[in-house]
């Protein structure tokens, strides 16, 4: 229900945010550098693990590179786009969220576009590099089906990861100091998504396989394009259901957000 006119509003806010980040050039580069470093360290962890073990959960290093690349790239893009949701607790505590209610745009879109962290671009760069390398080093049979799976995986992976931020934001309206509670799922999900789902413990299978379908962002498309079968509880053909998984988790996210907004208690004053 967003009109074209509203786009100008989001653009105006975002443009001002970007300008102000570039004003502090030195800080910005520092931020960019440090978030690049974090991404590289995480990637290196995976590489080190696999050079000593060779195979985990039926995947070797090059396959896991693909899992990591897909999951991390899509998550980083989601983080860039909607990661700002995780500042909601600050807005709630200070009551500054009230100001959003007084403007004629949807609250969620206002929250998402109220800021952007360009440094997160560096993170996406690491994911992209891993994905490209993963696509090259794996022996992929480039059938139209496999191409389609990959083409679905990227936008759906972004959508699934973004939904994680949104449901967590909805939950903040109910929780005091809720960020700690939801971060376990949001960032735990991010980490789990870069690992082979075949080795997840049972509770994780339910949690990140289906409730928050993180397995659909990296692992499932990977086993599908490599022609592997996947574990019994998560067969490779499920990769075709990635849009369904994205739809489901967005339903969850918007439901949580809507309940949260209605529950808003205000912050006195």
């Amino acid at each position, binding site marked *: 229900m967003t009109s074209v*006119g509203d786009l*100008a*509003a989001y653009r105006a806010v975002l443009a001002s945010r970007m300008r102000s980040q570039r004003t502090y050039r030195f800080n910005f580069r520092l931020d960019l550098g440090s978030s690049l470093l974090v991404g590289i360290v995480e990637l290196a962890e995976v590489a080190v693990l696999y050079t000593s073990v060779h195979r985990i959960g039926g995947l070797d290093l090059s396959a896991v590179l693909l899992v990591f690349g897909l999951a991390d790239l899509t998550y980083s893009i989601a983080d860039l786009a909607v990661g700002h949701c995780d500042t909601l607790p600050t807005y709630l505590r200070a009551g*500054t969220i009230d*100001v959003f*209610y*007084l403007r004629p*745009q949807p609250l969620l879109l206002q929250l998402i576009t109220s800021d952007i962290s360009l440094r997160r671009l560096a993170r996406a760069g690491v994911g992209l590099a891993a994905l490209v390398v993963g696509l090259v080093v794996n022996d992929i049979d480039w059938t139209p089906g496999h191409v389609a799976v990959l083409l679905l995986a990227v936008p759906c992976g972004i959508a699934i990861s973004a939904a994680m931020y949104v449901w967590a934001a909805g939950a903040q309206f109910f929780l005091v100091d809720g960020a700690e509670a939801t971060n376990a799922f949001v960032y735990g999900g991010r980490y789990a998504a870069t690992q082979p789902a075949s080795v997840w413990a049972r509770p994780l299978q339910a949690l990140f396989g289906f409730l928050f379908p993180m397995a659909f962002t990296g692992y499932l498309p990977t086993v599908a394009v490599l022609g592997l079968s996947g574990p019994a509880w998560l067969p490779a053909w499920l990769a075709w259901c990635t849009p369904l998984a994205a739809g489901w988790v967005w339903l969850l996210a918007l439901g949580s957000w809507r309940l949260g907004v209605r529950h808003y208690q*205000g912050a006195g*004053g």
Partner: protein
Amino acid sequence: MSEPIIETDALGRDFSVRDGLRRRTVVAVDDLSLRVEAGESVGYIGANGAGKSTTIKMLTGILVPTRGAARTCGLRPVADRRRLAREVGVVFGQRSQLWWDLSVRESFSILAAIHGLSPERERRRTDELVERLEVGEFLGTAVRQLSLGQRMRAEVAAALLHSPRLVILDEPTIGLDVLSKQRLREFLLAERAAHDTTLLLTTHDMGDVERLCDRVLLVDRGRLVFDGTLTGLSRTVGAQRVLVVDLAEPTPDLAIADTEHLGSEAGGLRQRLAFDPEHTTAARVLAAVTERVEVRDLAVEEPDVEDVVRRVYSARGR
């Protein structure tokens, strides 16, 4: 045209607050039914915690009512929040709707985009507000560097940029010095005269009410306890008026019928006499004084409304 701009029907809101380990329900607003016509200027007053801000948040769709219903500008505040936002301008004295790291000018132009103003309308309205609120001298300054008085003027301009029909101000003069308050009041009067805006304001500064409002709503513990004019409010609680006389020579404390001597200054050169307008008049008291001593100057003080509010509360057994 007869549709009220604000209408509430048995409106109420509870909060559940943690009290140690137990949860307790605070009734912030209860059974509030009121009607404000377009073009009115209403002061919404009451002690701290009376429920003023909570009411405003329900009227603007920020908080969902626990009971009852509200209509603002003919719209349902929660369900039609986005449409309502185009009709109402709100200033929360304690919150900022500007961007702290941007200049006032940039903040205004973002808000213009948010409200979808055409470039022509944006320019005209910005110019008007900048001139009337004297914002020009700090248009280029970052919001975080503004003084409180400057920031409040910028906040008011920001809330009025889209020319709302209804302007709601929650403690707009809090923390301002006398001169800044004066300026802001003059602006609001001029804005009302020019655009026929409806005004609803909460304040603890009774000067605001006296200068700006032709109607007063008084809330006590979430309930409406008075609705009428300021003079009417003073009359219901029998508030006294005070005659201050400057005398030609030091005089012992005057004892005048139907008055109470409140005090003398400068050795009896200035004396303050309280009287109840129901029983006597300022003219009669003055006549009684001039019979005894030459009067150089005089002033009649209107009742302090903070005092009136206290009286209403104590009459209600608080």
